């Protein structure tokens, strides 16, 4: 909120008049000079971080938000009286919207206006890149209604920001995968997502796909303004712009077979419907000059994206057969422990978690000997304290205890779903086991879950997206690990589903349509997709019917035997622990009370609590 000052302006006016020199050489503006500075700073950052959406304090323009207010602000920040301005909407200089913006800008900025792309120094556009060649002295300003390319796959803007910051675009790849599975082609039409400079996924304005290749290594500077969403972004000249698609799925531009412009006869421009079933160029400047013979058609043909015309022979249905021997990415290859590395794959030391005040000071007076987890000093809940264990490759360790014993807390601390109050976690695959992964930043910890430490949750919904197909769920992990071949992903998914005994006929069905046991098998397949050296299983069979649970247990037993994975199995059920693990740690009220070889513990439990757990499993 700001209140307009009704009193005579005081000393600050002096500051401004110094700044502006009291001159009146600029016509009355629709944007004050201070706001322009802010837009200009954001524009510069946009150029220096190509494809990143720079936030700015978007001002209200005399046009509604959604009507080019962002593009208008960028243009007002950029142009000077020496510029020659062109404004197009749908490629057309003559539409009402383009006309209105052009008169508004040129009258307030005192710059010349043109419809001839060749004369323009600044082109403000909605939905098109001009057909004419654009050069080094030209700037194209795009009006952007929706700047966020991830909006379709993630509704939370905070989460979208995180995904950009961490370059975590696997959700985007899953959506492309799902699209191909369901439709055989990528159905994304305009505003096609691109990877800019190998780093940021960016929405292209929306221009048609026809114009997207023009952004790659362009001569001109591209600036994007989203007024409503208050974002400015840019593609500098000579910057790599790749449309997102799998390596073996060609990007496709729009195509009208045998389409030609009814007016100028061009057959290699972006055409739109006209009356009587005819087509015309959407670029009115090009079309008019082409009809007059005032264009270089040969040079234009070099520019246009004929290489990306749709080709049914290169679509996934046609290529599925031909790619059996296509190379598989190296992703999933994990660092093997060096000869002098640790023997364990995962080592947990002194993990503690206190909910509530006091931290370590809350611990005294809690634990099995005090028969409570609630701190007498602070009232905090000591969910786990001083829990240590390690697991070697090819070994499975059980973590057993009743509900509330702290075993799942420990697992969540190891994964990173919860922040530990004390202790350390080391992975032999990370820095040879020298780094405490709890000290890594959240982004690095999330990265570990891609191919270093996978988890299978009790609830499949926690590890899977139920709206996505079984294949898509597994593709999420694979694309996060860098897989970019559609058919390679399909084959890997089929292999995994086959191993976990999910019928391949269900591969392209949404996981939400699966039974509980089948969902859990998909979750296991996803966890194994990148062959992580460490696998964490949190009550993997709890919640399943007994017969289904037995099947999943059999599967897990087989998987743990055949793979050189270090597994931690958390369960309240000694039968599960007994079936899967060699060594076990028994937890009660947040503490380890007994540990040893699983079959010994099961045959000859010492602690009365362990005896109870064993008895329960034998019933």
């Amino acid at each position, binding site marked *: 909120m700001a209140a307009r000052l009704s009193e005579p302006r005081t000393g*600050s006016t002096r*500051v401004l008049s*110094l*700044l*502006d*020199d009291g*001159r009146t*050489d*600029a016509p009355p503006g629709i944007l004050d*000079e*201070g706001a*322009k*500075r*802010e837009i*200009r*700073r*954001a*524009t*510069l*950052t946009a*150029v*220096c*971080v*190509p494809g*990143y959406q*720079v*936030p700015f304090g978007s001002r209200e323009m005399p046009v509604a938000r959604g009507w080019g207010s962002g593009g208008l602000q960028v243009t007002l*920040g*950029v*142009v*000077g*009286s020496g510029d020659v301005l062109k404004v197009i909407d749908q490629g057309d200089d003559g539409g009402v919207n383009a006309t209105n913006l052009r008169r508004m800008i040129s009258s307030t900025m005192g710059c010349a206006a043109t419809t001839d792309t060749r004369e323009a120094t600044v082109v403000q556009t909605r939905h098109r890149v001009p057909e004419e060649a654009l050069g*080094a002295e030209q700037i194209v300003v795009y009006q952007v209604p929706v700047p966020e390319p991830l909006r379709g796959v993630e509704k939370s803007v905070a989460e979208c*920001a*995180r995904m950009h*910051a*961490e370059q975590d675009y696997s959700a985007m790849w899953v959506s492309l995968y799902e699209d191909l599975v369901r439709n055989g082609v990528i159905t994304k039409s305009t505003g096609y997502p691109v990877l800019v*400079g190998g*780093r940021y996924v960016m929405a292209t304005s929306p221009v048609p796909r026809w114009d997207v290749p023009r952004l790659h*290594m362009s001569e001109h*500077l591209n600036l994007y303004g989203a007024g409503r969403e208050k974002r400015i972004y*840019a593609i*500098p*000249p*000579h*910057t*790599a712009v790749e449309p997102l698609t799998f390596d073996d799925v060609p990007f496709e531009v729009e195509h009208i077979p045998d389409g030609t412009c009814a007016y100028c006869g061009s057959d290699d421009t972006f055409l739109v419907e006209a009356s009587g079933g005819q087509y015309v160029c959407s670029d009115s400047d090009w079309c008019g000059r082409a009809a007059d013979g005032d264009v270089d058609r040969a040079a234009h043909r070099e520019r246009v994206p004929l290489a990306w015309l749709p080709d049914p022979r290169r679509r996934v249905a046609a290529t599925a057969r031909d790619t059996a021997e296509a190379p598989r990415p190296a992703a999933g290859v994990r660092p093997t422990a060096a000869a002098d590395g640790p023997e364990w794959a995962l080592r947990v030391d002194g993990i503690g978690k206190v909910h509530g005040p006091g931290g370590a000071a809350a611990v005294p007076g809690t634990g099995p000997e005090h028969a409570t987890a609630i701190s007498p000093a602070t009232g905090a809940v000591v969910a786990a304290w001083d829990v240590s264990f390690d697991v070697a490759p090819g070994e499975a360790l059980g973590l057993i205890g009743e509900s509330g014993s702290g075993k799942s807390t420990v697992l969540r601390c190891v994964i990173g779903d919860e922040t530990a109050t004390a202790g350390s976690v080391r992975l032999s695959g990370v820095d040879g086991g020298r780094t405490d992964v709890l000290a890594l930043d959240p*982004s690095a910890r999330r990265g570990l879950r891609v191919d270093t430490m996978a988890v299978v949750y009790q609830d499949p919904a926690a590890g899977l997206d139920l709206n996505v197909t079984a294949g898509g769920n597994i593709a999420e992990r694979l694309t996060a690990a860098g897989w970019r071949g559609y058919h390679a992903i399909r084959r890997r998914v089929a292999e995994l589903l086959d191993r976990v005994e999910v019928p391949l006929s269900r591969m392209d069905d949404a996981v939400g349509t699966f039974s509980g046991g089948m969902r859990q098998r998909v979750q296991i397949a996803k966890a194994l997709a990148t062959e992580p050296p460490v696998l964490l299983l949190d009550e993997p069979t709890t919640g399943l019917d007994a017969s289904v649970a037995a099947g999943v247990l059999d599967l897990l037993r087989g998987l743990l035997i055949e793979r050189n994975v270090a597994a931690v199995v958390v369960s309240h059920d000694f039968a599960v622990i007994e079936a899967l693990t060699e060594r076990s740690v028994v937890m009660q009220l947040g503490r380890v009370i007994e540990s040893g070889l699983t079959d010994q513990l099961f045959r000859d439990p010492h602690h009365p609590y362990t005896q109870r757990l064993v008895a329960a499993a034998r019933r």
Partner: protein
Amino acid sequence: MSPEAAARRPGQAPTLSPAEVQLVFRAVLEALARPGTPRQLPERPLAELPSALLPVLALSDLATPTCVLENGDRWARTVRTMTSAPMTGPADARLVAVLRQLADGEPVAFRTGSAAAPQDAALVCVRVPEIEAEPAGPGPVWRLEGPGVPGSRLLRVAGLPDGFVSWRDRLGSGFPTGIDLLFVTARGRLAGLPRTTRVGEEVI
């Protein structure tokens, strides 16, 4: 007093008109969009203001932490008066003008932004004696690659302390963090070095 400032008539406050501000911005925009291709700042203000101060004067406002590294505080006061910008130390500034010689290995910590907010990084304008694009004469030279550069381009910037390139490379924690640099000669020739540009040191 800088040679540019010596040309000022005494007693007259320096000025920058909106049209000049726009020209300065456009030169900076083009310089950062095309690293290694120098641009020219508008001439008139060079008579009364140090060239490396112009980008800062054109871009800062009352919400932009700004810093001038100079001998004394004369131009910092000018920036403060002309833009109302809050003046800060180099580590807190979004816009920095370096008007004095940087000492060899002078460790200046600038804001490098973060992956979550790359826009927090500093834009640093450094006054240098000379800039040469695609230089012909022998000597050390930078080979620039990255966005805005077709293939690679050679640039020679004189007067920087030893180890400048490796100092720049060590800033931040990898793209998108870092700083964006502008090099400005006394006569207003301007070259940009955004954080995206990879700089190789060569001798030709």
